[in-house]
């Protein structure tokens, strides 16, 4: 989110005039969100982040939002939420602590905001450091022969064997049990064939899917088992291949995923029908 927009891209707030109108771009100093804007105001006022004069900063913050609207810039929801937070802190600072606040007494209402600002500042600076590094294809260029090919992703991954697949499925079952989804409410009649078709349909939409996602929708134990059997059958028919990434030492890492086997077009429906 930033305060930069152009007249075509920004969505004008309803009922507002269009003081700038037309199609020319409006560019303001860029803020990466409400925390960034607050840090800017704190710097501008030369105040301490741990002792923010909240009334001053809050009113400057609100003025800034008003300016953004006047310029017809899209004020993202997170800016408004922060304005509300500032107003709340301001009220807490002004009002004497009420009875139910007794136990909170002594805790500065600004504390949580200060912690977030400091944490954000760390990463803002880290981002600056990253941006200053010598980046490939921006600051430094490598001699790379165009006809030599990088190791294809497929050589960075392993075909998953049955043992690991069963182990992964066991984890799916364990988790489903922990989440209490496995008691059978009614006998569901799902066939292996239906689940095979469901898996292939998903693989028609995306080139690959994560192993665990095929178990996501209907997690009753019977359906989970049927789905797993369907997957095994698809693997046996060489319609689906199962992969897992590996690290530099060829140790499997990351999620297991499924991919449609090469050369499997839309005739798999026929093959499934023939076999079952």
């Amino acid at each position, binding site marked *: *989110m*930033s305060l930069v927009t152009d007249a075509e891209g920004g969505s004008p707030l309803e009922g507002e005039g269009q003081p700038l109108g037309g199609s020319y771009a409006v560019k303001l100093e*860029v803020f*990466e*969100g*409400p*925390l*960034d804007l607050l840090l800017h105001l704190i710097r501008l006022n030369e105040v*301490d*982040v*741990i*002792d923010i004069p909240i009334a001053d900063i809050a009113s400057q913050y609100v003025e800034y939002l008003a300016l953004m609207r006047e310029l017809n810039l899209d004020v*993202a929801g*997170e800016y408004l939420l*922060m304005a509300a937070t500032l107003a709340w802190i301001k009220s807490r600072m002004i009002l004497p602590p009420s009875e139910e606040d007794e136990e909170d007494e*002594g*805790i*500065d209402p*600004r*504390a*949580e905001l*200060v*912690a*977030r600002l*400091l*944490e*954000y*500042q*760390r*990463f*803002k*600076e*880290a*981002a600056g*450091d*990253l*941006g200053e*590094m*010598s*980046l*490939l*294809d*921006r*600051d*430094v*260029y*490598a*001699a*790379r*022969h*165009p006809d*030599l*090919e*990088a*190791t294809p992703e497929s050589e960075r991954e392993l075909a998953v064997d049955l043992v690991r697949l069963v182990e992964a499925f066991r984890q799916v079952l364990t*988790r489903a049990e922990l989440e209490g989804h496995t008691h059978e409410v009614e006998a569901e009649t799902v066939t292996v064939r239906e689940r095979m078709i469901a898996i292939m349909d998903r693989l028609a939409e995306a080139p690959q899917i994560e192993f*665990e996602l095929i178990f996501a929708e209907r997690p009753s134990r019977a359906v989970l088992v049927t789905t797993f059997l369907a997957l095994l059958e698809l693997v046996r028919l060489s319609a689906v291949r199962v992969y897992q990434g590996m690290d*530099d030492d060829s140790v499997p890492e*990351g*999620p297991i995923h499924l991919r449609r086997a090469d050369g499997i077009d839309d005739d798999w429906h026929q093959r499934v029908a023939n076999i079952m």
Partner: protein
Amino acid sequence: MDDRQQQQTKRKKIVEALILAAPEPITAQKLAQIVPHLKPAAAKALVAELKKEYDEQDRAFEVWEVAGGYQIRTRPEYAGYLRQLQVERPLRLSRAALETLAVVAYKQPVTRAEIEHVRGVDVGATVRSLVDRQLIRIAGHREVPGRPMLYATTRRFLEVFGLTRLEDLPTLRDIEEFLPPPEEAPAAPGEVPGELH
């Protein structure tokens, strides 16, 4: 030059050719696989010799150790000239992209909600674009209700930022560095993390 030395010089040149033309950083193991009678440790030593030679000769390029391998890259001072040759747009990372990348790099694996908590803004589009550019990847799920996806940096991230491994990232600054010196500081309000001492 005796026979052994000649052999060594020849191997060094093969290593140089391989690093130069390899389409991605090439590891010492890979060099050892290709060059006859070369062990990974010896490959490393040859690369170190090449590095030294380039430095001594003040060449326009140098050997980088990135993402676990070696790559020959031009020195940064020639970027301005090289950009004029560049067919594709040079790599551009917005502040939003860099901030998001910083959170992922230092806190990985992280969920989108955790990134948003730090940055205070919605990061959906930025995360998607970083995944598309293969700088971050989905690295599983957090085992909490909803099983949100976890993001981590990729090998490509190391390559682009010229890092051998994640530990080579610049040290994340401590919160104390942003606070006034202890003597002048008023008592820290409430639960500010990083107590003054």
